[in-house]
């Protein structure tokens, strides 16, 4: 065995301390509660308190610890119970009643209540593990591996799981050039969306003559429905810090920042705790692990502009200027923060770095496709049955992602489209489902990997409205600096709005397409450059739906309020029920002379309440599009 370097020896001491501290955890039952923001929103704090109360009441000896997010949003709040003698078992949708059962039956009486269990975390003879479910077969967790299974507020949990071992080895045995070579060999591509090779970016900074350099982590995750970065920072912040430290060593930076949006207060809190603990352990600050490498990190809380996720705008906002993008070049690698060479990478990109150095570039390249090695993390939302955070190898098809990992569509509905890459991405139809997901294939189809938001749409979603929804977001978030984005997105939005109201013309569609292409080609930054993608892809793949809105004044998905009318089928309606009448906020629903119900179209505000209120045994309320169908129906009904 080779002799350990000084930093590795220093690390070994930290490791021994951590292991010694965590060893007693195995003696008593351990209850993990997932308290990332998603868990908290679902009631994790109440669950935590319920456990504590119940344990005290019953006099059961057990520890309650908080972990981050496992990515199974559909089953939040989640609790994992690790009781000596049993496999660790995860329970979903935990409430106070279940807490009582678990404490009583499992902790006191050794019945693990399998009927409530979601999954076992260790292989056993009684209950399936993740790998026994389709999701587990397709998922391959690399950067999410420890998320949800360690205490993000205790650095020793991370250290005990090989945390910072890569940093110690890098500092003790590798030159910056070797680190760069490893990252380049791994072909790690930036996970912020564009897929630019991280190694090339780092090298561009490393070769600069200017010696003051910065490393910035972009955690200004702003896509609606995307929460990968937040989840990682809340669940395993040290993984990202270690990645940044290694990057800083490779490019000889002295100072770095995590640019975290203020909307993520818990991520900011947990990262702050992580920074303090890393400093205490000598893993951050001066003379890291006893050597001569100095690097410190700070947090910059973004004030909430979507465009500040764009590199030049991010730097401007950090410098106290308006968060507006600039023309590139110069790139950040030559003139970034305060005019100095700067590496800016996404949270996920940094999270891969320690793992690549721990296990090697060849290991990394075993997963994924040759052009896009590694995994992709997706935040699945929308009409999918099991929304959540999933990490799958690059090259997994959209079909596998949605129908295996996400378990298909909720409520047995028909799949219509998937919006991938957030408001900068595109809507892809059924025909694109067998597309292997990687940076290049998505671009060819008109979408982008983006930061990994996946919104699944079903038959009830109107594609024109979806395009309008995403464009409204980017139009609202446009900084207003350049003509195409400021006025182009506004004009596009107005045209889309007119189409959803049945006021569009076929000529408008041509204008819309031309304008979308021009905004894409002519905008100053990538916000404007990608904002038209939802419009262009829906025009490409769902042109008929646009035409129906224009030519038939009809919304095939029955979603556009101006193109639908609510109608109560007299043959289905019951005289005995008046649920719809009570549900109407504007007294548009009334009881006819014959006791059946009808809707006064003049008063109706199309709130959908009556349709929801009508009992399933009648299903008498229907939506009609175009509204002119009413005359036909009413003629027959009378």
């Amino acid at each position, binding site marked *: 065995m080779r002799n350990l370097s000084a930093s590795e020896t220093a690390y070994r001491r930290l490791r021994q301390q951590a292991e010694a501290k965590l060893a007693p955890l195995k003696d008593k039952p351990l209850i993990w509660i997932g308290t990332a923001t998603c868990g908290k929103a679902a009631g994790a704090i109440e669950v935590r308190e319920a456990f504590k109360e119940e344990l005290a009441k019953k006099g059961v000896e057990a520890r309650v610890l908080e972990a981050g997010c496992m990515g199974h949003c559909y089953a939040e709040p989640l609790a994992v119970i690790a009781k000596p003698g049993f496999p660790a078992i995860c329970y979903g949708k935990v409430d106070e009643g279940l807490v009582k059962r678990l404490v009583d039956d499992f902790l006191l009486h050794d019945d693990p209540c399998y009927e409530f269990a979601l999954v076992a975390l260790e292989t056993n003879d009684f209950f399936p593990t993740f790998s026994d479910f389709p999701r587990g077969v397709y998922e391959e967790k690399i950067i999410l591996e420890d998320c949800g299974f360690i205490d993000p507020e205790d650095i020793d949990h991370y250290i005990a799981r090989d945390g910072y071992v890569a940093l110690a080895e890098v500092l003790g045995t590798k030159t910056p050039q070797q680190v760069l070579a490893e990252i380049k060999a791994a072909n790690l591509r930036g996970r912020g969306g564009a897929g630019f090779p991280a190694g090339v970016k780092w090298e561009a900074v490393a070769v600069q003559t200017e010696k003051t350099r910065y490393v910035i982590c972009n955690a200004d995750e702003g896509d609606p429905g995307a929460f990968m970065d937040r989840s990682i920072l809340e669940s395993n912040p040290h993984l990202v810090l270690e990645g940044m430290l290694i990057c800083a060593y490779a490019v000889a930076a002295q100072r770095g920042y995590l640019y975290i949006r203020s909307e993520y207060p818990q991520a900011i809190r947990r990262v702050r705790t992580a920074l303090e603990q890393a400093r205490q352990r000598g893993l951050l600050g001066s003379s890291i692990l006893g050597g001569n490498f100095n690097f410190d990190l700070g947090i910059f809380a973004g004030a909430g*502009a979507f465009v500040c996720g764009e590199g030049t705008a991010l730097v401007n906002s950090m410098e106290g200027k*308006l968060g507006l993008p*600039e*023309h590139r070049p*110069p790139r950040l690698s030559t003139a970034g923060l305060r005019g100095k060479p700067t590496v800016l990478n996404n949270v996920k990109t940094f999270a891969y770095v320690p793992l690549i150095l721990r296990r090697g570039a060849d290991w990394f390249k075993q997963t994924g496709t040759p052009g896009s090695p590694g995994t992709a993390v997706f935040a699945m939302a929308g009409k999918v049955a099991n929304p959540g955070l999933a990490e799958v190898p690059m090259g997994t098809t959209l079909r596998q992602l949605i129908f295996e990992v996400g378990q298909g569509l909720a409520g047995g509905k028909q799949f219509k489209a998937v919006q991938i890459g957030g408001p900068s991405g595109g809507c892809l139809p059924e025909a694109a489902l067998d597309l292997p997901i990687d940076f290049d294939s998505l671009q060819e189809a008109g979408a982008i990997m983006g930061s990994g938001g996946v919104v699944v749409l079903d038959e009830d979603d109107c594609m024109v409205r979806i395009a309008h929804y995403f464009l409204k977001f980017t*139009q*609202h*978030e*446009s*900084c*207003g*600096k*350049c*003509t*195409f984005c*400021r*006025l*182009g997105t*506004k*004009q596009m939005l*107005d045209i889309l709005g007119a189409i959803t109201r049945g006021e569009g013309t076929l000529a408008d569609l041509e*204008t819309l397409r*031309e*304008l979308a292409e*021009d905004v894409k*080609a*002519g*905008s*100053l930054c990538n916000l404007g450059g990608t904002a038209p993608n939802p419009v262009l892809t829906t025009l490409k793949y769902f042109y008929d739906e646009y035409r129906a809105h224009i030519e038939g004044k009809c919304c095939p998905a029955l979603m556009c309020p101006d193109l639908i009318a609510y109608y109560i089928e007299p043959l289905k309606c019951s005289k005995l029920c008046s649920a719809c009448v009570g549900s109407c906020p504007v007294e548009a629903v009334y009881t006819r002379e014959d006791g059946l119900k009808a809707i006064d179209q003049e008063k109706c505000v199309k709130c959908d309440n009556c349709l929801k209120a009508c009992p399933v045994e009648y299903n008498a309320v229907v939506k009609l599009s175009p509204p002119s169908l009413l005359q036909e129906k009413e003629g027959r009904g009378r």
Partner: protein
Amino acid sequence: MNKVKLFIDGRELLAPAGEKLLWVALENDIYIPHLCAIREEQRPSACCRLCFVEVEGRKRPVTSCTLPVREKMMVKTRTPAVDRLVRTAFELLLSDHRLNCGKCPKNRACALQRIARERGLKLKPGRFKALGREFPPIDESTGAFAFDRSRCVLCGQCVHADQQVVKVGAIGFSRRGLDRCVSTFTGVKLADSPCTRCLLCVEACPVGALYPL
């Protein structure tokens, strides 16, 4: 200084290396539409998106105000792709610009009119609807000049004159998106701002947003 040889629309030109293409073209009487370009700015704002040209070896049109000239650069100022972008940007600007040129103090001296003339464009929003936004009333509080926001194209020439040339800081950009505008700090009247009535901003304005009284 090092000179480079380049070709714009087939004309062979000599220009100082590193100079931005827009200025080289303008100096040689080759017109390229532009509103926001300021020669002294180290980092051009490149926000008006009008000065597109095509350069051999590049897939898409590029803004000439940001492009340093290189040896043997082959530039075309008029191609279908360039004309299309310029027309769209121009029409977009006009869709948010009060258009009664006859009554505008900048009539016949307006940069927008020049662009229309040079590129055969109509002084109309064309395919787009005029946004018809409400703007604050014209600010004539200084008595020396007027500021009409409904004619502002957000080029930033006045802000540059105020902040970089005379270093007064009476005006700047504020708000975001469609609401982005040139204004005084907190939006007070110009008379209540540090404005020194030097009129450099008025001179810099390429359109009829700032004009002497």
